[in-house]
C-alpha cells in the first residue's frame, strides 16, 4: 500500500436499535480500495444487521455511511446496487428456473431494450463478458438449475460485477457466508477469483469458518454484542486468538447457573441406537436421562440440526432405532412427538414457536387442549386459571393473559413457548437455539428456567448458537462433524470441557 488513500467505504458511528435489542452500538469500520476485510462474530453479534445496513435493507438510526469519503445513504437494496455495493449471499439468490444470462441481468434488462422488447442477443453477449471476468466457462443460455453450487456462486459474483458498468466507481462486494454450500476445492477456486478481482473491487467477507477468514482477508474486524471489539491484520492473527475475541470473556459459571446443575437420574428417557437419516446424519447413538441436558455441538452442516428435527417429529429417521420411554418409535409428525412427551422449542420462535395472533392463554394451552375439554367444549374458566398459573410461575411479563403474543418481548415469548410444553407435561424438551435474538437478561432468565425444569426431571436436548452456552448448560456434550458423532464428554460443574477441546472435533 502506498500513501494513505481514501477508504472505498466507511461506516462512522453507525447505530441501530430494534425493539428490545441494541443491535449495533456506534460501529465504525472502513474498507480500503482493493482490500478484503473479514468480519467475524458469534450469532447475534450484529454481523447480519451490519450487512443489511450496507446493502440498503435497513437504515441506520445514527451515524454515517461514506462512499469514497463522501457521506451517502442507501435507501433500498436497489439504491445500494446503483452506488456500487454488490452482494453474494449464503442462500443463493439466483432463480433456478431462469437462464444464467437472465439471472445476471435480472431487474436490469432495461439497457437491452429495443422498441419495448428485450434484445436477448445483446443481453447474452453482455452476460458472457461478465462470466469471463470470473473465468466461468458456461453458456449464458444454460438453465441455472443445471449448474452446480460452486458455479452458481461464481455466477452470483458475475452478477455483482455487472454493477461496474452501471455504478461507475469502485465496487464493494459483500460476501455473506459464500462458502457454506461449497466443497474445499470449490472454495479454493472462489478465493482465487476474489483475489484476482481485487483490482476491480473491495470485499467484505463474512464467515463462521475462521480458517477461511484468515486465509482470504487482509484485515479482520471482530464483533461482539453489537460492537466492534477488534480490528487486526490477518497476518498477525490466529484462530485461538480470534475465538477468544469473539467469545469475549472466559466461561462464567454463574451466568449459566452451574451451581443449580443437579446430577441427573438413572431413568433413560430417550435411547437412540445407530440413528440414521439419508445424507444428513448417520449412526447416532446416545442415552438421554431424566433431568439431563444433552448438548450437541457442531458447525453448520454437521447434521446436529437434523438430529433435533428428527426428535421433534419433522424429519423421521430412516435407519437405526429410537426408543422414547422404552417404546420403539418413529416420529412422523410433531403430533406424534407430542404424544410421546416431546416438546419442541424452535429457533424460529415467531414462526414455529408461537401463534403470534393468538392470546398468551391460547398459546399456553395449544399443545394440551384436550385436557381442558369437557363435553366437546373448552372449559374457558379452567383455561384462564391454568394460563394465569403459568404466567405467574414463569414470570411472563404481559399486560394480560388475553393479550396477543405478538406484543410480547422475545424473552417473554420464549417463556410462553416453555409454558406451553410444561403445561403439556412434556418429558423431553428439544431446545433449538433457545436464546437466539434474546438480550443478556432474557438469556439468564431462560437459563434459570431450564435449570428448574430439569431439576424436576425433564430431559433436554440442546443445540446452541454458541459453544459457550452449550458447555455452560449441558451435563453431557456430543460433538458432531459431517453427520457423525466425533466426540462425547461429560460437562460436570467445575469440570467443564474447554471450547478449544471441542472445536478440534468440530472442524
Amino acid at each position, binding site marked *: 500500500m502506498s500513501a494513505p488513500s481514501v477508504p472505498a467505504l466507511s461506516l462512522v458511528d453507525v447505530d441501530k436499535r430494534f425493539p428490545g435489542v441494541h443491535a449495533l452500538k456506534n460501529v465504525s469500520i472502513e474498507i480500503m480500495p482493493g482490500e478484503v476485510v473479514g468480519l467475524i462474530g458469534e450469532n447475534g453479534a450484529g454481523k447480519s444487521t451490519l450487512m443489511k445496513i450496507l446493502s440498503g435493507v435497513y437504515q441506520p438510526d445514527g451515524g454515517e455511511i461514506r462512499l469514497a469519503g463522501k457521506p451517502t445513504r442507501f435507501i433500498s437494496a436497489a439504491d445500494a446496487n446503483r452506488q456500487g455495493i454488490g452482494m453474494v449471499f449464503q442462500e443463493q439468490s439466483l432463480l433456478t428456473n431462469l437462464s444464467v444470462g437472465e439471472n445476471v441481468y435480472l431487474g436490469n434488462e432495461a439497457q437491452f431494450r429495443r422498441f419495448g422488447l428485450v434484445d436477448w442477443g445483446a443481453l447474452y453477449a453482455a452476460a458472457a463478458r461478465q462470466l469471463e471476468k470470473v473465468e466461468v466457462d458456461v453458456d449464458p443460455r444454460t438453465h441455472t438449475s443445471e449448474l452446480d453450487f460452486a458455479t452458481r456462486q461464481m455466477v452470483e459474483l458475475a452478477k455483482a460485477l455487472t454493477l461496474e458498468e452501471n455504478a461507475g466507481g469502485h465496487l464493494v462486494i459483500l460476501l455473506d457466508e459464500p462458502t457454506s454450500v461449497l466443497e474445499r476445492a470449490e472454495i479454493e477456486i472462489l478465493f482465487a477469483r476474489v483475489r484476482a478481482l481485487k483490482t476491480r473491487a473491495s470485499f467484505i467477507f463474512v464467515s463462521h469458518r475462521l480458517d477461511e477468514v484468515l486465509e482470504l482477508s487482509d484485515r479482520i474486524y471482530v464483533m461482539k454484542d453489537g460492537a466492534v471489539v477488534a480490528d487486526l491484520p490477518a497476518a498477525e492473527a490466529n484462530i485461538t486468538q480470534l475465538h477468544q475475541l469473539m467469545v469475549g470473556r472466559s466461561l462464567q459459571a454463574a451466568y449459566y447457573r452451574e451451581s443449580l446443575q443437579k446430577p441427573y437420574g438413572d431413568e433413560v428417557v430417550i435411547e437412540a441406537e445407530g440413528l440414521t437419516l439419508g445424507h444428513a446424519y448417520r449412526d447416532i447413538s446416545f442415552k438421554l436421562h431424566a433431568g439431563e441436558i444433552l448438548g450437541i455441538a457442531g458447525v453448520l452442516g454437521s447434521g446436529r440440526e437434523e438430529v433435533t428435527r428428527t426428535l421433534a417429529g419433522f424429519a423421521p429417521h430412516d435407519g437405526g432405532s429410537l426408543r422414547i420411554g422404552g417404546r420403539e418409535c418413529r416420529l412422523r*409428525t410433531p*403430533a406424534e412427538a*407430542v404424544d410421546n412427551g416431546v416438546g419442541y422449542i424452535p429457533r424460529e420462535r415467531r414462526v414455529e*414457536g408461537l401463534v403470534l395472533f393468538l392470546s398468551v392463554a391460547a398459546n399456553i394451552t395449544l399443545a394440551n387442549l384436550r385436557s381442558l375439554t369437557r363435553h366437546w*367444549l373448552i372449559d374457558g374458566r379452567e383455561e384462564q386459571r391454568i394460563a394465569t398459573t403459568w404466567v405467574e410461575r414463569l414470570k411472563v411479563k404481559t399486560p394480560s393473559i388475553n393479550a396477543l403474543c405478538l406484543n410480547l418481548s422475545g424473552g417473554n415469548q420464549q417463556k410462553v413457548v416453555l409454558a406451553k410444553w410444561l403445561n403439556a407435561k412434556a418429558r423431553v424438551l428439544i431446545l433449538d437455539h433457545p436464546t437466539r435474538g434474546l438480550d443478556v437478561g432474557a438469556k439468564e432468565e431462560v437459563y434459570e428456567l431450564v435449570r428448574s425444569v430439569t431439576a424436576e426431571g425433564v430431559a433436554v436436548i440442546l443445540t446452541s448458537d454458541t459453544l459457550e452456552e452449550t458447555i455452560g448448560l449441558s451435563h453431557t456434550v456430543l460433538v458432531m462433524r459431517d453427520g457423525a458423532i466425533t466426540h462425547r464428554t461429560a460437562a460436570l460443574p467445575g469440570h467443564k470441557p474447554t471450547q478449544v477441546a471441542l472445536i478440534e472435533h468440530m472442524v
Partner: protein
Amino acid sequence: MAALSESIGIDRIRQYLPVATLVVLVIAVGVAQPAFLEPSTLLQLAADTAVLFILATGVTFVIMLGGIDLSLQSMASLSSVVVALTIARLGYGSFVLAVAIGAVAGLLAGLAHVRFRIPSFIATLAMGGVLFSAALVISHEQSITLGEAERAYQVWITGSVAGVPNVVLVGLVVLIVAHLLQSRTPFGRYSAAIGAGEPAAYASGVKVDRQKVIAYVLSASFAALAGVILAGRLSSGSPTLAAELLLPSIAAVVVGGTAITGGVGSIWRTLVGALIISVVRIGMTFLGVNIFAQNIVFGAVLIIAVAITIDRSKIPIVK
C-alpha cells in the same frame, strides 16, 4: 411504541366498523322508508337473511383456517334438487340425505386439498363443477316444483311460531351451534391457530390436516342445509337455485370482519356481515337497482371490505 398503540387503535376501529356500518345502513334505509323499521319487516329481513347466513357460516370455518370454498353455491343447488327428487319417497329423510351428500362432497374436497396438496380454491372449484353437473344431470336440467303433499314436510321451514318465521329460528339454532363450534371447541381453536400461524400449530402437535378436512365437511354440510331451506322457501329444487349466492356469501364473511387470510374472525361477525348484505340488497331494491345488477355492488363491496380488513403491511406477498 407510538406506532404500536396507533395500530391497536386502528385495530379497534376495524373491529367495530362492521357493526357501525350495519347500524348506519339500517337507519339510512329506515329514514328513506319508515316501514322498514316495523317489526314485521325486520322479521322478514331476518328470514330473507337466513339462507345467506347459513352459507356464509359454513365458509367461515374454511376461511378461518386460511382456505376458501368456491363450491358452496353448486352444493346448495344440488341439495335443493336432491330434496325435490326424493321428498315424496323419503319424507324428512330427504333432508338428511341432502346434508349427508354435502358432508361427503366436503370430505372429498378436503381430502383432495390436504392429501394431494392442491390449493383449496382449485379443489373446491373443481368440486363445484362436479356438483353443478350432477345437479343438472339428475334434474334433467329442469326446475322441479313441489306439490302440496310434499310441502307438508317443509312446514319446519315455511311455517311460523308466534309470528316468528321458522326459518329465523332455524337460523338461530345454526348461529348457536356454529358459534359454539367456532369459539368453544378444540376444532375452532385449532382452526384459528392454523389460520394465524400454521407452522406453530403444526409444531405444537395440532393435527392440521384433520382440522382442515373437518372445516370443508362443515362448509359443504352447511351449504347443503342452506339448499334444503332454499328448496322449502321456494317450494322447488333447481340446479341453478343458489347460482347467485357465492359472491354475497363470501362478501358477508369478509364484510363482517373475518380476515380472508385466516386466523381472525367469528360467527358473530359473519352474522353482522350477512345482515349488512341483506340490508344493502333491500336498499338497492328501494332505489330501483336492477336485481341482476346487484352482484356488481357485492363485487365492489367484497374488494373494499378485503382492502379495509387486511393490514397489508403484515403480508408482503399476495398471490
